[in-house]
């Protein structure tokens, strides 16, 4: 497969992911509204919001980092997509594996932070105290989430003796019982709990916490910047779900499967969010240090003997 075809597939894949991200977001809002007995936003709303945002007539800038923050964020989202094998086609060189040959699970784990770090820098330059507060919360929670997640990732890597996501997906092919969910239940459980934090919905949405710290890091962002960040957010949500799908739920052999699985994964976090109110940061951190961490440690320990 030559590089141009690969590039074309990748761009196409990104468009799918982006739009699926918007749609998924709208769907979740819709589901939430329906649960509250409302009609909810139209499905097209995210796209409208995007167009509106990027077309504001006045734009301000607080400085160079404020400016670059959204770029980091979007690059983070796109990069995550680029380094993630999306759809399993039986060949590591397949059309939807993007640039995942350049790195493996470790790359994804660390690149995950790229956007967050950039965002943190950008928001910092704005000088808004709420932005900084949101970031401190976000980083603290991120750390707490990553500990069980890392343990679970390690467990899975030990299980399949590889860090390559493609190989992990490959190993889970051939029936639902080959999924990590069943072959390595502790790791799966740790991931399922920890990803609530990773996806950042209630009760772990104190990073944004509208009306408390005015949606945190993004509080100063408007217009085009906000549009970039919405795109990045949509991409990142899908990509997080795809990551967990690849690791725990057997990956996807087609875009449809990907859409269904990522929807369900994402829905799990929204579903939990519907039920639970927001945690304070110390509650959130300690929560991850209890059951998810224990599960993560168990997931690793079973491979030590």
């Amino acid at each position: 497969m030559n590089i141009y075809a690969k590039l074309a597939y990748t761009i196409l894949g990104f468009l799918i992911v982006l739009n699926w991200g918007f749609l998924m977001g709208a769907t979740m809002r819709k589901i939430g509204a329906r649960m509250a007995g409302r009609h909810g936003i139209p499905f097209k709303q995210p796209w409208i919001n995007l167009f509106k945002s990027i077309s504001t007539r006045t734009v301000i800038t607080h400085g160079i980092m404020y400016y670059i923050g959204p770029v980091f964020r979007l690059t983070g989202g796109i990069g995550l997509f680029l380094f993630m094998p999306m759809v399993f086609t039986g060949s590591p060189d397949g059309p939807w594996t993007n640039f995942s040959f350049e790195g493996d699970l470790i790359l994804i784990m660390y690149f995950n932070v790229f956007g967050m770090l950039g965002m943190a820098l950008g928001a910092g330059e704005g000088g808004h105290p709420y932005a900084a507060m949101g970031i401190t919360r976000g980083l603290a929670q991120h750390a707490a989430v990553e500990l069980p997640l890392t343990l679970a990732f390690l467990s899975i890597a030990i299980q399949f003796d590889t860090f390559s996501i493609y190989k992990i997906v490959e190993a889970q092919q051939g029936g639902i019982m080959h999924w990590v969910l069943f072959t390595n239940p502790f790791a799966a459980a740790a991931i399922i709990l920890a990803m609530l934090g990773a996806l950042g919905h209630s009760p772990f949405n104190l990073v944004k916490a509208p009306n408390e710290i005015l949606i945190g890091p993004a509080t100063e962002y408007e217009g085009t910047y906000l549009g970039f960040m919405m795109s990045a957010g949509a991409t990142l949500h899908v990509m997080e779900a795809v990551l967990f799908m690849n690791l725990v739920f057997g990956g996807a052999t087609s875009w449809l499967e990907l859409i269904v699985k990522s929807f369900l994964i994402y829905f799990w976090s929204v579903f939990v969010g519907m039920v639970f109110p927001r945690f304070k940061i110390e509650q959130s951190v300690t929560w991850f240090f209890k059951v998810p961490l224990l599960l993560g440690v168990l997931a690793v320990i079973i491979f030590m003997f």
Partner: protein
Amino acid sequence: MSELDLNNKTSEMLANSEANVKNSKKNFTRPEDEKREVVAPDGSIIEVNPLYDYFSNEKPKEEKPRGGVVEKFLNWARAESIWVLGFGTGCGSIEIPPLVTPRFDMFRYGVQMRPTPRQSNAFIISGYLSVKTLKRVIRTYEQMPSPKYILALGSCTINGGMYYDSYSTINRLDKYIPVDVYIAGCMPRPEALLHGFVKLKQLIKEGKAEKANEYARNFDEYKANQKKIIKDWNMPDYNW
């Protein structure tokens, strides 16, 4: 008024405020707003003017619509995505929360609440507006990105209503900031507010909701009015 005059006025204003601080406390100038001196690490003295130094000193500019199909499409998008600043300025703000309930559900019209003016394009001024609150409203309004719209909710915003002769409330909102849609009543019910949104959407789609440009165009006039009513003007002239 030319820009030069304005600058003169600003400095005059500042000088006045200084003199006032010295002579009387009539204008209630806060000590934080006085000029102060700080010592730099290398020992030199830096004079800080809190009302001037920290703020962008530039007038808002008029942003012409692009026109054509693009503008039409964008206006449609703006109309379908009205982000309201959640800022209850007066008595009527209690009428806003019902809009998110299943009974009224403003989301289906593409109307959402946003916590920060940077991300909002609609501002509901609800009920009477005290002079004190007007300062905040002005700053918030000027911070919102253009195009931006104001919905005036209730009679008091039209002519002062029952507070028409109060010393502390303003009795005609559009002298101070431009209003796109008035929603009459004391108080109007949430349905009326929803109607106001529909009206606003209609105006936007027709390209008639360009009050932000009007404000920029007549900025000096508005500013003069604002200063007239706000006796203790202790804020920057330009809010970004």
